[in-house]
């Protein structure tokens, strides 16, 4: 699954640690999501979307499975 987390984080000038703190996850989890190594759960995806005030589908898009 592709995502725009890195782009959105950069836009807010947040570090991975800053974002992790706001999402109440570890910095490694943010890194894993950004690099596409981990797809977040639905609740976490909703938290990300809420934080950036966007829809989930405008942050995450399904890749080729």
């Amino acid at each position, binding site marked *: 699954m592709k995502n725009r987390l890195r782009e959105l984080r950069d836009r807010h000038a947040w570090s991975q640690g800053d974002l*992790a703190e706001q999402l*109440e996850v*570890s*910095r*490694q*989890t943010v*890194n*894993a999501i950004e690099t596409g*190594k*981990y797809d977040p759960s639905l609740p976490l995806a909703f938290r990300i979307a809420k934080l950036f005030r966007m829809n989930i589908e405008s942050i995450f898009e399904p890749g080729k499975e």
Partner: protein
Amino acid sequence: MRRAVTAYRRQIFLLMAVYIGLMWLVWPHVHTATSLPLKVALALVPLVPMSAALWLIVMDVVGGDELQQRVHLIALSIATGVTCAASFMAGVLCAAGVLVLGGDDLMWVLPATALIYAAANWVVGRRYGGLGCS
């Protein structure tokens, strides 16, 4: 969060050091103790730091985020599977009279599980970008 991880590691290492110290100092006296209650107490004393360490690990898993819990779960599945398979194989070979195992050998099951778990945790963590085991 890094400070919490450091504190957690320090506590685990301290408990493991206490465990090793107890095994070193107390365990030799288990065989020579004459009274049964003393023998039981000496034999079970190492369980105190071991239980405390297990409790800390459980608290670490419970307090982790979803990816950390996933890594722990995969690592635990691998460690449990490998240890169960090895124990079963040893048990079958023992029952067949090929292998001779004593009660002392059972003491290696938990350390073996812990070592495989730590290794699996590190490997699986690296797959997700280096979570490793805390």
